[in-house]
């Protein structure tokens, strides 16, 4: 047993040493170490992605990844650092969460970075938006919930993960598309919002699949609808909002971006690494086990995805900001 103990301690070190020389052939243009700025605390959703993605990227690129956690202002501290104060030689990247990445500065003038000051590398996962209610809730279907809002406008309570988060905007998009009005209740994150729905404290929670999947599976929550293009493989019985006549596809996405103007070669190598990663069956299986919905979009396509989202949310915010910030 003691021998195994020592091996468990040493294994990572041995691995790190062993990997380095083998893969030296294709040298990464941004150096032999990449610092990843994380805008959230260790152990959160971003970290879970980092721990899944980075060991594999490390093998593909033959470099080491160093995580630097800088939580604060819903990621804006880290992203300001990325855009304004990081070397653009490919040695620093950051996990970028959309739509938070854009809504941060759309909503607050004091946040000064812009996605134009970044080089989007790749989106990795998109956690689709989902409507959940307490298992004992009177609302059996999404129609029930919408009817209740029609009969008593502004009283049906809908939890979201916080002002500026994806669920907050999804609620507004649904309000605009349906002409209904809900009572939006912000929480400090998806977890507390789901808990409140589980306890029957709010009528429904607009959440994300990954956060509530195990609660749906075990019967604590009931899913009424998903904000996805098509029905999800994991929840085949839950209808999409599109089916119900509301063309809203939304979710919370996480990917990687670098500062603007990094060397073309480094950008290309990073993009190719993510493309290789996306095809790895072991990676796909691991992601599925963690209820992470892979949505790998690289390079210019990721840029387009960001720009599109920014335009859409800027429009939504311009319309509702006077109402929200009374």
């Amino acid at each position, binding site marked *: *047993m*003691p021998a195994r*103990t020592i091996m*468990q301690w040493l*294994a*990572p070190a041995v691995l790190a040493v062993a990997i380095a020389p083998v893969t030296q052939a294709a040298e990464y243009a941004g150096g032999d170490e990449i610092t990843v700025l994380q805008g959230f*605390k*260790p*152990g959160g*959703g971003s*970290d*879970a992605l980092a*721990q*899944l993605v980075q060991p594999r990227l490390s093998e593909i690129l033959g470099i080491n990844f160093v*995580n*630097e*956690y*800088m*939580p*604060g*202002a*819903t990621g*804006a*501290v880290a992203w*300001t650092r990325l855009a304004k104060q990081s070397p653009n030689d490919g040695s620093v990247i950051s996990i970028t969460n959309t739509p938070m990445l854009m809504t941060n500065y759309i*909503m*607050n003038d*004091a*946040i000064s970075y812009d996605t134009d000051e970044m080089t989007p590398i790749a989106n990795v996962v998109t956690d689709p938006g989902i409507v959940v209610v307490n298992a004992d809730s009177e609302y059996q279907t999404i129609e029930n919930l919408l009817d209740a809002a029609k009969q008593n406008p502004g*009283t049906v*309570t809908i939890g979201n993960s916080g*002002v*500026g988060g994806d669920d907050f905007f999804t609620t507004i998009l649904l309000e605009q598309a349906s002409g209904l009005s809900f*009572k*939006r*209740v*912000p*929480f*400090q994150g998806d*977890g507390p919002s789901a*808990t*409140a729905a*589980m*306890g*029957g*404290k*709010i009528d429904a929670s607009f959440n994300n699949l990954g956060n509530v*999947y*195990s*609660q749906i*599976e*075990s019967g*604590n929550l009931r899913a009424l609808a998903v904000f996805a293009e098509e029905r999800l493989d994991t929840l085949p019985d839950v209808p999409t909002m599109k089916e119900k006549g509301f063309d809203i596809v939304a979710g919370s996405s996480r990917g990687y971006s670098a500062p603007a103007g990094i060397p073309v070669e480094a950008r290309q190598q990073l993009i190719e690494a993510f493309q290789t990663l996306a095809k790895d069956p072991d990676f796909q299986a*691991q992601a599925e*086990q*963690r*209820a992470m919905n892979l949505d790998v979009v690289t390079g210019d396509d990721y840029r387009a995805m960001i720009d599109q989202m920014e335009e859409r949310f800027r429009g939504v915010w311009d319309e509702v900001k006077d109402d*929200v*910030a*009374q």
Partner: protein
Amino acid sequence: MDSSLVMTGLTNVLSLTNIACILGGTVLGLFVGAMPGLSATMALALLLPLTFSFDPATGLSMLAALYVGASYGGSIAAILLRTPGTPSAAATVLDGFPLSQQGKAGQALGISLFASFFGGLMSGIALLTAAPLLGTLVLEFGPVELFAIAVLGITIIGSLAQGSVISGLFSGGLGLLVSTVGMDLTTGTPRMTFDQINLFSGIDFTVALIGLFSVPQALTLIENSNQGEKVASRITDRLIPRLQTIKKLMPNILRSSGIGVIVGLIPGTGGDTASWFAYNEAKRFAKDKSHFGKGEIAGVAAPEAANNAVVGGALIPTIALGIPGSSSTAILLGALMVQGILPGPNLLTDYGDVTYTLIWAVILANVGLLVVGLAFTKMSVSVTRVPDGFVACAILTLCIIGAFAINNSLFDVGLMLGFGLFGYWLAKAGVSPAPMVIGLILGPVMEVSFQQSMLIGNDSFGVFLDSPIATVLLILALLSILQATPAFRWVRRPLKRRLQRG
């Protein structure tokens, strides 16, 4: 509860690797906890990436042991140096340090260790036996109930305001005011942030706490360093408390452990809150309140039993429902997620082997704490033989490291030093920083839950009366306030007289 899983967990935890990791975690926790400025949550966050390469059960056991160790370790610096090692040991300072000044540091540390052990053990047993039952209780606590808890907690300020009520209320009000810095939850508007994005998430109360408690003490040590006489420099009494003392404190320890478990299991409140609640109740139940704040041993036992009981309490909803009961257990859940275990209500069933190993690890870590803690505490007492000037420099260095490590932010270091200077001024002016800390801890909880309650209740205060839990808690808060006013004495005096006569 599946008894075979319970046994699997027990055999898992008794493997050499796991015992070694649990003991290692406990020692590391003691060490980190004892250092002013370094907190349990921070240590968990720093150790977390290291455990990714471990087997899930081993990694989690080590993290849990660290959490247990740090929950006690914080009291060592609180008692010996008047600087809480962790936020949850802030209440221990009030009576721990006066005891140390009277030359009773050994007694205070011994009681702190035993109270921590009992608190931790009891919460471990609650975790093992009643987790599924108590876990569902968490769902009863929504924004409305959380608001009532925060209000009840705020009333503690009144009872902490020893001497001058005005200065206590001033300190508490200041804490509440500072806690409003940051983004407004319901509108997203930044308040009092002066366009400084480092303030958007508000002021981390740990940063303020380090500044308010530790920096003034370091400065005071430097001021007095040439005076020669040091009362607390030697342990003249025994570390292991007498059976008689333990017996006398047992009701207090049991009550405090209960408070710890309950406060721990409510998401949004943790060891920092529980220790103040327990301290306040110990004072309320005491026949002779005059010694509190001047070196009352019950004032050490209560917060220490409570903050260790929080560990098990906070784990209850974590394992029963996948809902973290505190910021530290949120990190433990993160560890599970990274290991590929999706936290949810299936932790006790599908991943029962890992979960029960974790539960046994908590119990084992408390036993380990008692053994390792005795040796460690004896060693750490030698810190009082170090000249004050050196201790002061070490405290300041640790404060800077600690403030930086919370968010990897230099801004926080500046903020901490600012709070430090302010705290120094408060100390000179004779204002206690304790009410301010309570304001800082509970202010955001109270504000956020109030806004949410108003939204849920359609802007009607009736929402608080619709919830039996909230109603009871708010009535308790009202009584707690009345108790401190002359009105209560007018009612009580004739009543007492009548009782005596009758």
